[in-house]
């Protein structure tokens, strides 16, 4: 087990799980530039690290994340050359892309409010497990901005256009219950049951051959941008040709026929 404490987020690897914990509870985990860049780097590194099989994004305290640190933003806006777009390109976008691109499952554990870029961060994860008090909020419209960090891409796909626009224009929060109903999140449990629910999900993920996890994510990601069903099915055929030659596929078939539990090696 390795634990490294960065000041603003915690980075711990234990038994194949990398847990990145937003750790500014006094500021409702508002995201600073260093935090965002550190998280992106940790996620990308985990993609290459064979000892990491699953990534968990969690948060300390009562809220998941309040979004960008507005105090930090205000201070930096004093600089004439400051532009919001540059901040997004430099700090926010790389983290969202890293979460979508890393070919390992990323599980978000959300309690309390996930606002703005905090909502983006949670929603960019693959699976979301929430406590009943979780809610997603985007109040960009109240300060004359638009949702960013991928929200305008993720939300219409997850919620449909009407709800996504209503949510963004009117800053209407999405409760855990609604989020579950619309498939924005996977599970909602009482706060005290969160650790057990996360544990169960991780356990299930560990039973799946890693290459299946990785390439399923790649194919699903790709489908969101694929030009056609035909094109996407050709992509599936390519990946299936590759996976069909792996040891884990052979093991999966033998164990099924021999009625025993498979032993997957990730090869």
């Amino acid at each position: 087990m390795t634990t490294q404490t960065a000041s603003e987020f915690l980075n711990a690897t234990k038994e194949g799980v990398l847990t990145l914990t937003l750790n500014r509870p006094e500021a409702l985990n508002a995201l600073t530039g260093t935090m965002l860049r550190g998280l992106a780097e940790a996620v990308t590194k985990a993609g290459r690290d064979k000892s990491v099989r699953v990534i968990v994004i969690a948060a300390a305290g009562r809220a998941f994340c309040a979004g960008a640190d507005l105090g930090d933003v205000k201070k930096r806006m004093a600089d004439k050359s400051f532009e919001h777009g540059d901040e997004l390109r430099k700090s926010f976008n790389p983290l969202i892309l890293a979460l979508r691109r890393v070919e390992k499952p990323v599980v978000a554990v959300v309690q309390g409010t996930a606002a703005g870029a905090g909502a983006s961060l949670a929603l960019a994860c693959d699976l979301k497990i929430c406590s009943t008090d979780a809610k997603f909020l985007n109040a960009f419209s109240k300060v004359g901005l638009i949702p960013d960090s991928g929200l305008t891409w993720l939300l219409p796909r997850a919620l449909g256009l009407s709800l996504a626009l209503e949510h963004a224009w009117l800053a209407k929060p999405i409760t855990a219950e609604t989020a579950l109903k619309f498939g924005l999140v996977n599970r909602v449990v009482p706060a005290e049951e969160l650790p057990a629910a996360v544990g169960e999900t991780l356990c299930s993920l560990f039973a799946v051959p890693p290459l299946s996890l990785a390439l399923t994510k790649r194919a699903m990601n790709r489908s969101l941008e694929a030009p056609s069903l035909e094109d996407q099915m050709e992509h599936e055929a390519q990946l299936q040709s590759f996976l069909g030659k792996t040891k884990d596929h052979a093991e999966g078939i033998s164990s099924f026929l021999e009625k025993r539990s498979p032993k997957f090696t990730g090869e």
Partner: protein
Amino acid sequence: MNAAASEVLVERDGAVGIATLNRPQALNALSMPLMKALIDALETFDADSSIRVMIVAGSPRAFAAGADINEMKDLADAKAAEAAMAEHLGRWDRIGRLKKPVIAAVSGFALGGGCELAMACDLILASETAVFGQPEILIGVIPGAGGTQRLTKAVGKSLAMDLVLTGRRLTAREALAAGLVARVLAPEVLLDEAKKLAREIAKGSPLAAQAAKAAANAAVDRQLDAGLSRERQLFYTLFDTQDQKEGMRAFAEKRVPKFEGK
């Protein structure tokens, strides 16, 4: 076998000749000895009647990340640069003169000389991880092995200038949209698919394949009327071949033709 030769792995798979750049520790930087070994390998395939199609491949992380900057960073002036590199860059031009079709299988970086090498081939298959670019401007020079010419012809001047003037990179998907690459494939199957494509081309008449390549090159290099007349001339020439007779007869008899390359 000298050191440079081992930097290009040569393999024959039926009628397909495969040259794989093998200098992974330098991301396949295209040093002068490596390029010499590569071009020797390709010309050997071109002259070998058992080979019908060639593949140039790199490693998963890099097709080729560029030229070997160490070879040129201390060149004092234009005269010194020309003296040091004229033979090397002249050798590059021989790739374009190969008669048989050459497929570039590009995974990872195809930057600078790597991008130029891919473009010197006849068609590019890219893995989803491929990135293309001509970043020479970032070190104060421009492409010197055909980059400004082939990129401009492949994607048009506007996008070529955007890339060459900034050193910006194109993803595989962008390269597909721009017409720089023919297909984008999962990295895991890139080489298998390149071989499949090569075998498919090899099944056809090699004489027709070479004529098709020569005619397409004329489209890139000549005025339209000259290109059209070259195409027509090549088209007529193929009626001197057994393969044309066999192809058309098999078509009429509804069977699969067997091309002998005669």
